[in-house]
C-alpha cells in the first residue's frame, strides 16, 4: 500500500474498530476480539509506515478544506511516526489490560468504553500524521471530546465532577490560548503548514515570538504545564486503563508531541534556540521540581502517578524550550520512554487495586508477597521513569543534561539531577512499602493478620501480562534508544550522536 493509503488506514482502522465494537456490543467476547484485532491491525499499519518511510517521498494528502488555508492535510514525518508507533504499540497492551480490569471490576457500559478507546486512538493517529497546525488542532479537540466519556465512565457524582474539571481545563485552554495562537500564527506567517525549519522566522520580533511560544505552551492544555495542570489529577476519577491511556499513551503524549512539532516545524529549532524559549525554560524547570515535590505528598497511588506525569511532561516542555537539536531529540525520547515507563506504573496501580482493593500507599504495605512479578515490573517502571541507566528512561535525562550543559545552563543541570532523586523519592517508596514492609507495619487501619483482605481475588492473568511486557519494553528501549534517535535525527537536524 502507498504511504497515503497507510496513513488513511492508520486513522480509519480504529474508527472502523469503534463502529464494529458498537455493533458487537451484545457479546463481550467478540467485542474484545474486535478490539484486539483492531489494535493488532493498527500496530502492523504503523510499523509498515515507519519501515517504509523516507523523507523524500512523503507527500501531503489533503482530505478536506474547512476554510481556505485551514485544511485537513496529512503528512508522514519522523516525529509523528514515533508518536504513532508509541500509541499504536501500547493500544494492544492497554486493551488486553482493560479486558482484565473491566471484567474484574464488573464495570457497566463497557461497549462505550472500548468504542471511545478506539476513537481516541484514531484521533491520536490523526494528530501524529497531521501535516498542518489546523489538522492537529482538529484532531486535538476530537481527542479531548472522545476521552470525556472515558473519564466520566463510572458516572458517579465524583466522576462527573472530576470529568467536568478535566474538560473545563482542556476545552478552555484549547479554545482560547491555543486557537488564539494558531490564528496569530496563521495571520503572521500566512500559512499553517508544518515546514522543516519553521515558518515564523523573521515574521515576528523575538519578544512577540516568546509570547507566542508561551501562548502555545499554555494553550496546549494536554502538556499539563504547571498552574494549568489541574485536569490531570482530576482525571484520576477514571478507571485505571483510562488513566493509563490518558497519562501514558494518548492524551498527554499528544500534548507534548504537539509542542515538539510546533517547536520544530512552526518556530524552527534555531529560532527557539536564539533565546525565545528562555522564559519557558524557567517555567518548565520549576514545574518539574514542583510537580515532583507535590507528588511526594500524595497518599493515593494514582494521584501520585498523575503528579509524576506532570513532572515528566514538564521535562519535554523543557526540551522544547531549550531548543537545540539535541534537546528536541531528548524530548522525543522522553515521549517514548515515559509512555512505556508510566504505563507500567499505571498497570501496576490498577492491578494492585484489582487484587487488594487498595488505592492508598499507606494501605498497601506487605502486598508484594502475593504479587511478586507485578511488583518487579512496577520497580522496573519506577526506575525507568526516574531515569536510571539499565532502563530506557535514562536516555532523555542524559541528553537533556548534555543539551543544558552545552548552553551553560548549570542551574538547569542541577535541577535535572535533583529531579531524578525526587522521582526516586516518590516512586521507590511504593515498591518498598509493598514488598519489604510487613502488612500492618505502619498502616493505621491494617487488617488483622487472620483476615487477608476480603475477597483478595487472584490477579487475573490478563492484568498481569501487560505490566510485565511494558517493563520488558523499558529494558529493550534502553538498547533501542540510539536507533530511535537515528531515525529522527534528519528531521531535527541532529548531526553526530552524543
Amino acid at each position, binding site marked *: 500500500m502507498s504511504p497515503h493509503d497507510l496513513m488513511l488506514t492508520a486513522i480509519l482502522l480504529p474508527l472502523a474498530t469503534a463502529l464494529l465494537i458498537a455493533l458487537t456490543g451484545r457479546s463481550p467476547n467478540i467485542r474484545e476480539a474486535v478490539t484486539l484485532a483492531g489494535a493488532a491491525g493498527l500496530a502492523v499499519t504503523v510499523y509498515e509506515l515507519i519501515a517504509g518511510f523516507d523523507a523524500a517521498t512523503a507527500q501531503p494528502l489533503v482530505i478536506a478544506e474547512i476554510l481556505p488555508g485551514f485544511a485537513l492535510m496529512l503528512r508522514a514525518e519522523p516525529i509523528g511516526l514515533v508518536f504513532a508507533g508509541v500509541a499504536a504499540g501500547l493500544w494492544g497492551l492497554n486493551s488486553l489490560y482493560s479486558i482484565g480490569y473491566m471484567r474484574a471490576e464488573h464495570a457497566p457500559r463497557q461497549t462505550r468504553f472500548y468504542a471511545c478507546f478506539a476513537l481516541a486512538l484514531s484521533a491520536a493517529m490523526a494528530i501524529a500524521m497531521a501535516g498542518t497546525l489546523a489538522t492537529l488542532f482538529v484532531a486535538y479537540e476530537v481527542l479531548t471530546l472522545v476521552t470525556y466519556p472515558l473519564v466520566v465512565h463510572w458516572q458517579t457524582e465524583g466522576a462527573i465532577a472530576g470529568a467536568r474539571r478535566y474538560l473545563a481545563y482542556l476545552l478552555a485552554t484549547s479554545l482560547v490560548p491555543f486557537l488564539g495562537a494558531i490564528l496569530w500564527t496563521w495571520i503572521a506567517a500566512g500559512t499553517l503548514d508544518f515546514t522543516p525549519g519553521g515558518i515564523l522566522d523573521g515574521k515576528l520580533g523575538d519578544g512577540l515570538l516568546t509570547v507566542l511560544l508561551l501562548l502555545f505552551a499554555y494553550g496546549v492544555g494536554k502538556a499539563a504545564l504547571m*498552574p494549568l495542570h*489541574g485536569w490531570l489529577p482530576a482525571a484520576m476519577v477514571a478507571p485505571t486503563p483510562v488513566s493509563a491511556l490518558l497519562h501514558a499513551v494518548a492524551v498527554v503524549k499528544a500534548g507534548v508531541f504537539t509542542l515538539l512539532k510546533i517547536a520544530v516545524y512552526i518556530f524552527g529549532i534555531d529560532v527557539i534556540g536564539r533565546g525565545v524559549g528562555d522564559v519557558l525554560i524557567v517555567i518548565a524547570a520549576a514545574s518539574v521540581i*514542583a510537580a*515532583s*515535590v*507535590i*507528588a*511526594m*505528598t500524595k497518599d493515593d497511588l494514582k494521584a501520585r502517578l498523575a503528579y509524576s506525569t506532570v513532572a515528566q511532561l514538564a521535562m519535554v516542555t523543557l526540551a522544547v524550550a531549550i531548543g537545540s537539536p539535541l534537546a528536541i531529540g531528548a524530548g522525543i525520547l522522553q515521549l517514548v520512554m515515559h509512555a512505556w515507563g508510566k504505563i507500567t506504573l499505571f498497570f501496576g496501580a490498577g492491578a494492585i487495586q484489582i487484587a487488594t482493593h487498595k488505592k492508598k500507599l499507606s494501605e498497601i504495605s506487605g502486598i508484594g508477597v502475593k504479587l511478586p*512479578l507485578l511488583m*518487579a515490573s512496577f520497580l522496573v517502571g519506577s*526506575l525507568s521513569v*526516574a531515569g*536510571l*541507566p*539499565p532502563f530506557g528512561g*535514562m536516555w532523555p*535525562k*542524559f541528553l537533556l*543534561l*548534555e543539551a*543544558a*550543559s*552545552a548552553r551553560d545552563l548549570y542551574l538547569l*543541570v542541577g535541577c535535572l*539531577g535533583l529531579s*531524578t*532523586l*525526587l522521582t*526516586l*523519592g516518590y516512586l*521507590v*517508596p511504593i515498591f*518498598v512499602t509493598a*514488598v*519489604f*514492609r510487613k502488612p500492618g*507495619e505502619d498502616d493505621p487501619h491494617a487488617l488483622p493478620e487472620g483476615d487477608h483482605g476480603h475477597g483478595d481475588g487472584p490477579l487475573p492473568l490478563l492484568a498481569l501480562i501487560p505490566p510485565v511486557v511494558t517493563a520488558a519494553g523499558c529494558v529493550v528501549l*534502553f*538498547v533501542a534508544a*540510539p536507533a530511535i534517535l537515528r531515525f529522527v535525527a534528519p528531521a531535527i537536524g541532529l548531526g553526530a*550522536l*552524543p
Partner: protein
Amino acid sequence: MTEALALDLAQLPPGWPLLLAGLLAGLCRLPIAARNIGYLGMLASLWLMFMTGAPAVLQPLDAALAIAFHLVAGAGLMFAAAHEDRMAVAAGLVATGAACAALASRSLGGLMIWTEVIAIASALIVMAGGTPAAVRAGLAYLLLQVLAGVLLLIGIALDSNGTVTAGAFVLLALLIKAAAPPVHGWLIHAYAAASPTGSLFLSAFATKVAVIALARLFPGEPALIWLGLFMAVMAVIPTLFESDWRRLLTWAVVSQLGVMIAGIGLGTPEALDGVRLLAIGHVIYATLLFLVAGALEARGGKAPAGLRPFALLAALTIGLPGLAGYLGKAVIGEALIHAGLGWADIVIVIVGAVVFATAGLRPLIEKFGTPGDDRITSREGAAALLLTLAGLALGSFGGALSPHAEIAFHATPLIVQGIALAVAALVMLTPLRRIFRQRPGAFAALAVPLPSWVIAAVDGFGRLGALLDRIGETAGGFLGGGGRLVGQAAVGLARYVSVGGVGDGVLWTLTVLTIVLIVSFG
C-alpha cells in the same frame, strides 16, 4: 556514550550469563532451583570470559578480580543453601554480572550504567534484610548511590564539551561510591542491616568497582593519599570498641578501602598494582569474614561446632603473609617507601595489624567460648574452604599476576608485618583487651550520614510539596470565588435588563431610540 551501548548481540558484556541467571533466579519460586540456575550462570560466565579465547577484554589483574567476584558469587550461593533469602541470591547474581561488565567497560558511560545496576541490585539486597532499619538503610543506600550516578552523568555530560569541572564531578561521584569519609555512613548501615547471605554479596562489588575506576581515572592525586590514610585510621578506631561482629567488619572494610585509596593517591604503577592486589585480597577475606560472622549470627550467636577452625582461618587471611590480605598491603607499603613516605607504610601496617586483631582474633576468642549444639552445614564449610583456598592461591601465586608482587617475599616487609601481628595478638590474647570495653553500636555517631538523614533530606521536599499544594488549593479557591463573583454580577446585570413587565420593554425601546438618534446626529 552511544558506543558504550552499541550492544549488538555478538558483543555482550562479559557478565551477561550472571545477569540472566539473576533474573531467572528471581522469577522461580523454589530456592533450590534458583541456586542451581545461579551455579549454571556463574560457570557459564566464567567459561565465556576465560575459556572461549574471547579477546582478552580484561588485563590480568582485572581478570583476577573478576574471578574473585565469581568466587564470591559461588560462596554466596553455597552459603545461601542454609539460610532462606531468595531476593539476596537473585540480586547478588545480577550484581556480580554487572560488576564484571563494569570492569570490562571501556568508556565512562559504560561504567556509569553498570555501577547503577550494581547500586540497584545491592539496594534490593539491603532492603531484603527484613527489618524496618534494613528498609531505611536500603533506601538511603539507593538514594546515595543514585546521587553518585547522577553526578557521574553530569560529569560525562560536561566533559563532552571539555570543561574542567567535569573531572571534579566524576571524582566526587566515585568517592561517594567508594565510601570516602564524609559519606561512608551508607556502607556501615547497609552492610549491618542486610541479611547474612546479603552481606556476603554486598561486601564485594560496589566499592571495589569504584576503587578500580578511581585507579583507572585518577591515579596520582596527592589529596587521595591523605584522604585514604585518614579514612584508614578513622575507620579502624571504632573496630576496637565495637562488639557486634558484623558492624565491626564493616568498619574494617572502610579502613581497608582507605588503604586502597591511599595507594591510588600515590599513583606509581607499583602502587596501582598493590591496590588491585589488595582489592582482590580484600574481596576474598572480607567475604570469608562476613560468611563466618553470618553463620554465627544465623545461629543466634552460639558458634556451631566446626566453625572455629574456619573462623581462625578467616582471621589469619586478614594479615598473615602468604594469604589473601597480606600481599596487597605489602606492595602498597613498598610503593609508599619507594616514594619516600615511609611513615605512611608504618601507618598502613599498624592499621592492618589492628584490623587483624580486632576483626579476626578478638571475635575468635570471645565469640567461640561455648560451642553450640548444632554443627555447621557441609555447604557452609565448603564455601569457607573455597574462599580460604582462593586466599592461599592469591597469597602465594600473586607474583604471576603482577611483577611487583614478588616483594611479598622480601625480608623487611615480612619482618615488619610479623612484629606488628605479634604485638596485636599479644594485646588481644591477654586481659589487656579489657581496656577497650566493647558495646554494640560503638561510635555509631561516626557513621555519618545516617539513613534517616538521607531519607529526611529527600522527604523534606515533601513538606515543600505540601506547601505548594496548599498554595495551589487556596489560589484555586480564590480564583473560583472570584469567578463566581463575576458570574453573579454578570447574571444580575443581564437579568436586570431582561426581567420586568411589558412597560419596561417599551421604555427600553424609547431609550434605545434616543441613544441611536444622539449617535446619528453626533
